[in-house]
C-alpha cells in the first residue's frame, strides 16, 4: 500500500493544487483521501484503479470541506465540475515536477522543504515523517502548517522555474533529496521495520525527478550516488550494529547487479558533458564500488575526481575526504599536512578527528592517534559510529 500511496499521492496533490490554486486546501483533500484509503483498503482490498478511487474520495471530502467554509465557494465549482471525474481510463497529467519545485522553493526553510516533499510528493503521513526524523509529531505538524501558509501568503507559484532560475532551483531540490537520503542512510535501525525507509524514498524521488527531467546531468549524478551507496548497504553494519568502514567491508555482500546497473546511469550523465558536484561524487562512489578489494581501489582516479570537485565546490569536508585519496597516492605525511590546515574549520566534526587518527596511526604516532580517536568519540552521538570508535580504543 505504501508503494501505491507514494505513486498516487504525488500525482493527486499536483493535480489538485493546479486546479484549486490553494496548496493548503489541496493538501488537506489528499490527506483526507489517504486516511480514508487506510481505513477501507485493508478491509476491501486495493482497488483496480487506485488513482481514480483516491481522486473521487478527495473530491468528495473536499466538497464536504468547502461547503462548510464560505470563503471557498468558487473552489467548490472546481471540484464539482464533471471534467474532474476520472472514472474514464485516462490518467491525470503529471504535474509532479511543478509540485517538487514548489515544495523545495528556496524561500522555505530546509526542514520545511523536506517535510513538505515527503508529504505532498511521497504521501507520507505526519506520524511517518516524525518517526523518520525522530522528532515529535507536533513539531512536524507545525512545520507543515507554516510552510503551506508561507506558500499561500508569499504567493510561491506552482510552476517549473524558467530557464534562468532553473540551475539554482534544481540544486535546491537536489540538496533536499540528498539531505533526506543521508538522514535515512545513517539510521541505525532504531526505526520500526514497518516504517518507511527514508533513504529508499529519497532514491525513489530522485528517480522520479530523473524521469521528469531527463536532460539534467546533476539529477542523474545524485541518483547514481544514492544507488552506489544503497548497493553497499548490507555490508555497512556488523552483527552488533557497529559501522564497518569501507576498507573492512565484506564486498561479497555488495549488490553487484545494482552496481553494474548504476554504471549505465554514470555513462548517461558523462555523455551530457556538463560536470557538477553530484556527478563527481558519483564517480568517486563508482570507483569504490568498482574495486574488487580495498587494495584494488584506483586511488589516482579518485584523487582526480576530488581535485575537480575542489575546483567547483571547495569546502573543508571535501578537502578532508580528498586527503584520504591523497594519502593513498602521495603518502600519509602529505595527507596529514593537508588536513592539519582544516583544524579550525573542522574541530567540532567527529570524522575530522577520526581521519586524523588514522593518518597518525599510519605515521607511527600512536599516542596522538588514540587522543584523536577519543576526541572523535566525544563528538559523535550516533551509536553505530560510537561503537566503531570505542572498539578502536580498546
Amino acid at each position, binding site marked *: 500500500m505504501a508503494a501505491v500511496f507514494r505513486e498516487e499521492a504525488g500525482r493527486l496533490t499536483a493535480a489538485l493544487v493546479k486546479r484549486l490554486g490553494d496548496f493548503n486546501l489541496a493538501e488537506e483533500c489528499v490527506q483526507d483521501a489517504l486516511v480514508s484509503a487506510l481505513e477501507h483498503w485493508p478491509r476491501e482490498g486495493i482497488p483496480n484503479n487506485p488513482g481514480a478511487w483516491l481522486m473521487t474520495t478527495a473530491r468528495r471530502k473536499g466538497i464536504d470541506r468547502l461547503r462548510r467554509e464560505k470563503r471557498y465557494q468558487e473552489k467548490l465549482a472546481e471540484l464539482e465540475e464533471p471534467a474532474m471525474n476520472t472514472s474514464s481510463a485516462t490518467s491525470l497529467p503529471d504535474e509532479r515536477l511543478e509540485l517538487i519545485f514548489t515544495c523545495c*522553493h528556496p*524561500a522555505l526553510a530546509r526542514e520545511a522543504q523536506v517535510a513538505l516533499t515527503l508529504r505532498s510528493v511521497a504521501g507520507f503521513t505526519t506520524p511517518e515523517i516524525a518517526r523518520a526524523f525522530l522528532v515529535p509529531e507536533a513539531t512536524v505538524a507545525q512545520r507543515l502548517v507554516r510552510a503551506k501558509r508561507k506558500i499561500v*501568503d*508569499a*504567493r510561491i*507559484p506552482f*510552476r517549473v*522555474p524558467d530557464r*534562468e*532560475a532553473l540551475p539554482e532551483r534544481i540544486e535546491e531540490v537536489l540538496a533536499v533529496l540528498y539531505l533526506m537520503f543521508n538522514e535515512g542512510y545513517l539510521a541505525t535501525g532504531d526505526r520500526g521495520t514497518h516504517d518507511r525507509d527514508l533513504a529508499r524514498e529519497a532514491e525513489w524521488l530522485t528517480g522520479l525527478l530523473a524521469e521528469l527531467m531527463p536532460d539534467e546531468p546533476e539529477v542523474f549524478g545524485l541518483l547514481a550516488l544514492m544507488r552506489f551507496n544503497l548497493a553497499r548497504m548490507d555490508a555497512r553494519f556488523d552483527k552488533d550494529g557497529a559501522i564497518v568502514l569501507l576498507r573492512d567491508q565484506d564486498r561479497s555482500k555488495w549488490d553487484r547487479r545494482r552496481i553494474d546497473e548504476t554504471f549505465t546511469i554514470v555513462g548517461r550523465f558523462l555523455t551530457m558533458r556538463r560536470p557538477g558536484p553530484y556527478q563527481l561524487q558519483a564517480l568517486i562512489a563508482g570507483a569504490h564500488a568498482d574495486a574488487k578489494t580495498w587494495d584494488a581501489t584506483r586511488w589516482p582516479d579518485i584523487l582526480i575526481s576530488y581535485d575537480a570537485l575542489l575546483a567547483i565546490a571547495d569546502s573543508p569536508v571535501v578537502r578532508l575526504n580528498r586527503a584520504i585519496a591523497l594519502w593513498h597516492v602521495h603518502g600519509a605525511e602529505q595527507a596529514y599536512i593537508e588536513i592539519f590546515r582544516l583544524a579550525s574549520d573542522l574541530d567540532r566534526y567527529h570524522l575530522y578527528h577520526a581521519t586524523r587518527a588514522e593518518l597518525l596511526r599510519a605515521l607511527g604516532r600512536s599516542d596522538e592517534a588514540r587522543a584523536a580517536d577519543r576526541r572523535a568519540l566525544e563528538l559523535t552521538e550516533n551509536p553505530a559510529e560510537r561503537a566503531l570508535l570505542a572498539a578502536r580504543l580498546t
Partner: protein
Amino acid sequence: MAKYALLFFNDESFRDRSKDEVDAVYAEVTRWSQDLQGKGVLKGGMELQSKGTAMTVRRVNGAMRVFDGPFIESKEHVGGFAMIEVPDLDEAIRIAKAFPGGIEVRPIVEH
C-alpha cells in the same frame, strides 16, 4: 497580482567608499528603479537617510520613550525600500536579485 516590500539593507561602511564607487552604485540603483517604473511594477519607494539620523519610539515601563538610534542595533540596517506589484514570488525574487545590494523580500498584507 501580489505586492511585496523590498527592504534594502546596507552596511554603514557604504558611505566611506570612494565617491566614484558610491556614484556607480547609485547609478545602478537608478537604472534598476527606472526599469521597474517603466514596466509599471514599481508602486513606491524611498531612500532613507543614514543610520545616524534614526531615532526610535518605544514603550518602556508603560510610557512611550524616545531613543537615539535604529529599532534594532545591528551592523546592517535598512537603507531604503521599494514596493512592487508582480504576479508571484519568483518574479519578486528575480527583481531583488538584479538589485546591487542585499534585500529582504516581504509580502504585503492586503486588507
